[in-house]
Structures are given as structure tokens and as C-alpha cells.
């Protein structure tokens, strides 16, 4: 095998800066190697995103390294990002010379030996195989389905996530081999910023962070604003519970984000840029830092990029754990070293943002869309998605699904397709109840919306929002009142406290909900209070949405008001019947004593405020249900774990 003498610089020179369509045979070979079209020795890929790590991928990786050393196997080990099949992790892919790459699921460390023993000998371990990747240049494995045909992947349209989980995120050259930075190179060579903006406006790309504004227009506003110094900020704060799209993009394909930022910076005329990264995203931070360094060394970042005269430096700043900093102006304040409090608008950040200079704030996914748009053109981009919401959207689908994970679908895909076609339906065969879209700022979608296309306008029409991509699905066993309470509690905690409606309003909303999920004090007037409280929720919610300063407050009442709308009987049961049909609301639960575990120590009976526990010393005790008020003190004090929730 010829040793490749192609360096990164040569790669860039011959591939990116080459305006002809001809490339040397040497380069072609090098590219094939980088793209792993065929490999010369076994390559073992371990799905190594944060979700992979939490599943135990690092331990699996150690076991693999140990095996390779022990058995003196010459193989390459690659840590990739997340392919989105979180339900199947830890994922281990193996590509043998001449054979297609195969993917194994749920590979715990103890399985490594048998799996590698088999596979390295060209025997597939049928118990754990997931599938194989299509490859014209290699021999397929027998009787193994194609990954692309799996229901999970078939219905996806993976543009942004195309390489996540497949390529080595630590290797810039792999990204370039797959076409990376070509868009930037050709843009710097032959397009003006105005042309880039025009293409992106025509493509209809809308902000994927939840705002849904035309990204190209935002860039235009900044480009036309007065002043020399302008900033681009990539919002990677991603703090919605159940959202990890941006993390997967950065961990899986960090160079994609860098290229997107470079194109955006060029188009918007911004001279300095930041990535504001959620502080707990340590792995993502490590990978993007390496990617930035490699790009700098290769001349793809820094001064006079690719000899075009365009300069760009990217600085990483980590957040400090405040959900509200996902809001543009709060994020800007945080970058300035202040409390993450939103600013009144106008002036808009594109006019007066960071340090009062024109600033563009874009979400990670939005920026990740840009290289594809520039490379393929606006028309091609619009081939997926709907007219008003072109393109694709990455969703983190979690909750009571068979298959939780990360997917990318064209805008306009229905909820039904996502839940039943891709995610395999509800876990344990339970019934679908609702899907929360948009996190704590979003409404819930119910059965009647299963066929609503998921795109900005259709969602707005049913008073829902797209959000950043978090989609949580709940089943028949979920208490919707409890879920609403969970979201309000989250927002209450996240509120910055600046404006009265959000700070005090969400507090009162939470209290009203706590009032109906808590065991009552006796007395009819308390029922009236609860009832009055809930009646006030709508008006209170309306005032909060209408007067709050920022998006957090404006959308805070949404989860509550939508669950109230669609699940009013559940609310009424809580209020009038003091019943939680899902047995979730602790204040409305009942307790029993496990007679086998109970030692008769009488502690619970002594502490019970209602004298609802009877029993003789050293004999199993018993809770009288009618007297029990669900306070749970017996549960707290029992040293023998004999008190159980019914």
C-alpha cells in the first residue's frame, strides 16, 4: 500500500481551492481512505457522545482496547459522536477490510470478547447486530438488514446529522473529505456577503432555536447596521429539559458548526464570534476546542482565511447554568459579565447587542444548516420540508417511547410518523396521551393533533410552538396535572426575577397547582379556594403572557394552559374528587404497610398526625385508608422500608 504524502495543507489546496473538477489519483485514494470507503485494517467505532458515555461507552471502549492489546490485533479505534439511536447504546460499529460497516447495539463491556472474537473472524454476532451500512465498494454481510432501511432511519432525512456517529469528530480531514469547507472555500473565492445572504434568505432557513425568524434577514439587519465592530454569537446554551440536539451536532460533527459560523460571519459582516456553550457540556467543549485549533492551524480560521482577506476568530465561553441565558439578550448580558437578565427590545441585538454593537445570535442547528444550503443551493434546500418551513429539523424524542433518541425529519412530518413510524410507538404497548413540544415553553399536542404537520405555521395555528426540538411523549399513566406542575416549577426556578408578571406570576401559578395536588386541609372553603385558583389561572396566564418582558415569561403559562384545555377532567378530578388517577400526585396518594417488612416498632403510629395507623408493638401495623391524609410522614420515618406507596 502506498503511503499517502498528502498533508492537510495539500488537501485544502487541491480539494477546496481547486476550481476545476479534476483531482489527482493520489488525492482520490486519500479521500477514499478518509471516507473509509474501504479500509485496510479493522476499524472499530464506539458511539461516544455524552449519552454514550452515560450508557457506559467508555467502559466498553476500555474493554475493546484491552482486547485488542491482549490479542495483538492491529485495528483502528475511533470514538464518534451520537448517531441518535440512544435506545441502542452503547453502540459499537465494526468495519472489516472489504466488508460493509456493521453496527452492534447495547454492547456492554462483558460482551466485547465474544463479539470481537466472532466479528474479527467474519462471523456476525446475530444476537446484538443492529444492521449494516450500504456500501457499493464492499461486500455486504449476509442476512443483516441495512441501517438505512431500518424504520428508525428510513423515515428520517439526515442532512445535519448525516455524519454524526459515523465520522471521527476529532479529525478535520475526514470532514473535508466528506465535502466539508468546500462551501466556505467557494464562497470566499467567488461570492459576496450579500450573495450569501440572498441565498440563505431564498432558502427560507428559519432560526432553529425556537424563534423561527428568517436567518438571512437577521444577517442582513446586522450587515446593514452602522459600525465596524460586529459580533456573531452561536447560542449553544441548550438548557431545555429533554433537548440535546445541539450537543449531538457539536460532539458528532464540530467542524460543521465551524463552517456554518464562518459562512454566517462572512454574510453578516461580523468580525468576532463566540460560542456560548452550556457549562455542563464538557465533552462538546473538548471536541469543539480541538476542532477550532485544528481549523486555525489549517488556515480555515484566523487571519486571512484561505487567502481571501476574511478574518474570523471563534472564542468559546461557557455558560454558568441559567436557562434564561438561552434568551438572546440575556445571553449577551452574560457574555458581558453581568447577570443573565434580558434587555428591553428595541433596540434589537442586530442593532445594539454585545457591548452595544450589532450582534447576530444564531442557534447551533441553524448554523449547521448553512454549509449545506450554500453547497447545494437554495432550491435544493427547499426540496425537503414545507413551503413556509423549508428544510429539516432535528428532534430529541424522549419520554414513554420504545425508541428514544435523536432524529432529523423534514419539516411537515407528522407526530404520528415520528412516534409510531420512527420511534416504534409507546413503550410497553401503552396508549399515547400527549406530546410536549417546545419544552417548558411549549404546549402539549394530543391525539387530535397526531396528523398535524410539524412546522412553524401549523403549530402556531393550534397555539403550539416548535421550540428548539425537544419532544417529550407521555402515555396513559402520566398525570398531566403533575406534568404541568413540573414545567411551572422549572420555569419558576429559571425565572430571572426582573419583571413582576413572570417572577410573581409563575410563583402563584405553581402554588395554585400545588394546591390541587396536595392533600387538603378539611373545610369547604378550601375547595372553593382551589376552584377559584384554577379559574384565575387563565386570566393570570394571559396577563403573564401579555406583559412579560422576555420569551420565558411570555410562554410560561403555555404548558399549563394547554394541559388545562385538553385534560380538564383530570384537573377536575384533582380539585373535586381529590383523586389522581395516575397515582402520581403524592398528596393524593395512599400508603400501605408491607406486613412482612414491618417490625412493629410503632414509630409510624406515633408520628401519624391523623392517628390513622393501628397495630400492637412487635406486630405488623396497618394504615386506615379513610383516615390517611397522604402526608407521607410514616414513609419518611420508617427505618425498615415497610411503608409503601399504593
Amino acid at each position, binding site marked *: 500500500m502506498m503511503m499517502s504524502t498528502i498533508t492537510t495543507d495539500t488537501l485544502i489546496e487541491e480539494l477546496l481551492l481547486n476550481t476545476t473538477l479534476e483531482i489527482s489519483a493520489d488525492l482520490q485514494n486519500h479521500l477514499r481512505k478518509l471516507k473509509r470507503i474501504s479500509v485496510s485494517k479493522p476499524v472499530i467505532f464506539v458511539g461516544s457522545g*455524552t*449519552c454514550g*458515555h*452515560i*450508557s457506559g461507552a467508555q467502559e466498553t471502549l476500555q474493554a475493546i482496547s484491552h482486547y485488542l492489546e491482549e490479542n495483538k490485533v492491529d485495528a483502528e479505534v475511533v470514538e464518534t459522536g451520537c448517531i441518535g439511536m*440512544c*435506545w441502542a*447504546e452503547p453502540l459499537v460499529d465494526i468495519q472489516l477490510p472489504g466488508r460493509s460497516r456493521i453496527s452492534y447495539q447495547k454492547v456492554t463491556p462483558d460482551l466485547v470478547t465474544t463479539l470481537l472474537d466472532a466479528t474479527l473472524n467474519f462471523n456476525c454476532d446475530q444476537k446484538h447486530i443492529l444492521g449494516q451500512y450500504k456500501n457499493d465498494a464492499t461486500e455486504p454481510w449476509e442476512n443483516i438488514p441495512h441501517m438505512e432501511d431500518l424504520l428508525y432511519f428510513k423515515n428520517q432525512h439526515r442532512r445535519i446529522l448525516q455524519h454524526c456517529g459515523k465520522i471521527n469528530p476529532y479529525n478535520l480531514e475526514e470532514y473535508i473529505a466528506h465535502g466539508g469547507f468546500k462551501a466556505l472555500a467557494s464562497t470566499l473565492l467567488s461570492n459576496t456577503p450579500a450573495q450569501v445572504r440572498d441565498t440563505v434568505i431564498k432558502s427560507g432557513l428559519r432560526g432553529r432555536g425556537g424563534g423561527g425568524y428568517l436567518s438571512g434577514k437577521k444577517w442582513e439587519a446586522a450587515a446593514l447596521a452602522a459600525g465596524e465592530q460586529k459580533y456573531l454569537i452561536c447560542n449553544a446554551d441548550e*438548557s*431545555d*429539559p*429533554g*433537548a*440535546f440536539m445541539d*450537543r449531538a451536532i457539536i460532539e458528532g460533527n464540530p467542524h460543521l458548526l465551524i463552517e456554518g459560523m464562518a459562512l454566517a460571519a462572512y454574510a453578516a459582516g461580523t468580525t468576532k464570534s463566540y460560542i456560548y456553550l452550556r*457549562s*455542563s457540556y464538557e465533552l462538546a467543549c473538548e471536541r469543539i476546542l480541538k476542532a477550532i485549533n485544528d481549523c486555525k492551524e489549517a488556515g480555515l480560521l484566523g487571519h486571512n482565511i484561505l487567502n481571501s482577506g476574511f478574518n474570523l476568530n471563534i472564542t468559546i*465561553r*461557557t*455558560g*454558568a*447554568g*441559567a*436557562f434564561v441565558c438561552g434568551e438572546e439578550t440575556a445571553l449577551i448580558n*452574560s*457574555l*458581558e*459579565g*453581568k*447577570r*443573565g437578565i434580558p434587555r428591553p427590545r428595541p433596540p434589537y441585538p442586530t442593532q445594539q447587542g454585545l*457591548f452595544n454593537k450589532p450582534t447576530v445570535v444564531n442557534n447551533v442547528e441553524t448554523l449547521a444548516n448553512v454549509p449545506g444550503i450554500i453547497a447545494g443551493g437554495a432550491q435544493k434546500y427547499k426540496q425537503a420540508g414545507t413551503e413556509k418551513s423549508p428544510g429539516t429539523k432535528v428532534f*430529541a424524542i*424522549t*419520554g*414513554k417511547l420504545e425508541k*428514544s*433518541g435523536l432524529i432529523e425529519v423534514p419539516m411537515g412530518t407528522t407526530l404520528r410518523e415520528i412516534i409510531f413510524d420512527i420511534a416504534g410507538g409507546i413503550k410497553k404497548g401503552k396508549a399515547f396521551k400527549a406530546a*410536549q413540544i417546545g*419544552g417548558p415553553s411549549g404546549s402539549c399536542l394530543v391525539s387530535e393533533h397526531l396528523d398535524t404537520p410539524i412546522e412553524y405555521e401549523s403549530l402556531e395555528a393550534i397555539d403550539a410552538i416548535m421550540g428548539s426540538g*425537544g419532544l*417529550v411523549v*407521555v402515555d396513559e399513566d*402520566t398525570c398531566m396535572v403533575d*406534568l404541568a406542575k*413540573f*414545567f411551572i416549577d*422549572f420555569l419558576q426556578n429559571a425565572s*430571572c426575577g426582573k419583571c413582576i408578571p413572570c417572577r410573581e406570576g409563575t410563583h402563584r401559578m405553581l402554588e395554585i397547582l400545588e394546591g390541587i395536588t396536595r392533600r387538603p386541609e378539611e373545610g369547604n372553603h378550601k375547595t372553593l379556594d382551589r376552584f377559584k385558583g384554577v379559574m384565575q389561572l387563565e386570566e393570570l396566564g394571559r396577563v403573564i403572557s401579555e406583559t412579560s418582558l422576555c420569551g420565558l415569561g411570555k410562554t410560561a403559562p403555555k404548558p399549563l394552559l394547554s394541559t388545562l384545555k385538553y385534560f380538564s377532567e383530570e384537573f377536575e378530578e384533582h380539585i373535586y374528587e381529590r383523586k389522581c388517577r395516575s397515582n402520581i400526585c*403524592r398528596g393524593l396518594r395512599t400508603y400501605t404497610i408491607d406486613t412482612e417488612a414491618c417490625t412493629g416498632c410503632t414509630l409510624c403510629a406515633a408520628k401519624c398526625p391523623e392517628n390513622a395507623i393501628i397495630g400492637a408493638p412487635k406486630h405488623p401495623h396497618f394504615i386506615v385508608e379513610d383516615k390517611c391524609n397522604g402526608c407521607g410522614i410514616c414513609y*419518611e420515618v420508617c427505618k425498615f*422500608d415497610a411503608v409503601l406507596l399504593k
Partner: protein
Amino acid sequence: MEEKIQQIISSHKGTKREDLIPVLQKVQEEYNHLPEEAIYTISNQLGIPASKVYSIASFYNLFRFQRTGKYHICLCRGTACHLSKSAELLRKLKKELKIEPGQATPGGLFSIETVPCMGACHLSPILRVNKVYYTKVETSRVKTILNTYRNK
């Protein structure tokens, strides 16, 4: 402490207001929390009134003013984990350790913190002790997990 903080600030290469949060982050990494003295030292060295330094530090979840326990337990309070009854886990932890989130046990062995979604929702409910993850944790397993650390 003054010298160490001076070192941290020089290595960060920035002494303006916008450098405050990164400096606070690095100082907390060094000392596990933000000691009172550190707030005043940072205030002096960056020329920012102490009330502002404290104001900014107290705004963000990341910063704490008390040392964590030897074994710092982080419980995920994301939506999927909540649906998988993480609230019960929290209740059990509180019962076992007799402390609230944000506190440490009197001997300093354990501390509890509730953290926002860790993003591994298919493994809910999740808790983390220092750098070790425990997934799909049933309430009954809590005691066992705690005991592994108690017996170390």
C-alpha cells in the same frame, strides 16, 4: 489565596468585566466552591465592586458558596427523568441523608444537587456521584448506592 487567584486571572488574560464569569469558573474549579475571601480578592483584582461580583455569582446555578461533600450526588431533574419518578429518588435521598439539595451532610461525606436534564433520557432516572453515572435507578437501589460510598 490572593496569589493563586492572581495567577488564575493572569492565565485567563483578561481583567475586564466580561472576564468575570470565566474567572469565577476557574476559581471555583480550583477551590470546589467560591470562598468568601475569593469574592473580595476577585473584586479587588478586577476592579468590580464586591456586591456586583457576589450578585453575578449568586445569579447562576453553577456557582456555589459552600463546599460540596466528598461524594457529590447530582440528580437529574429533566422531563423524562421526572416521568420516571426522579421526584421519588430525591425524596429517598433526602430521607436517607437528612439534607436538602444544596446542602452537605454534617461530616461532609455527601451533598445533593438537583441538575437540569443530562440528556440521556432513555436511561432515566439518572443520578451521578462525582463522575460515576447510575442509570435507571429504582428507589430501592438508593440505599445500596449510598452504602458503597459509605463503606469506602
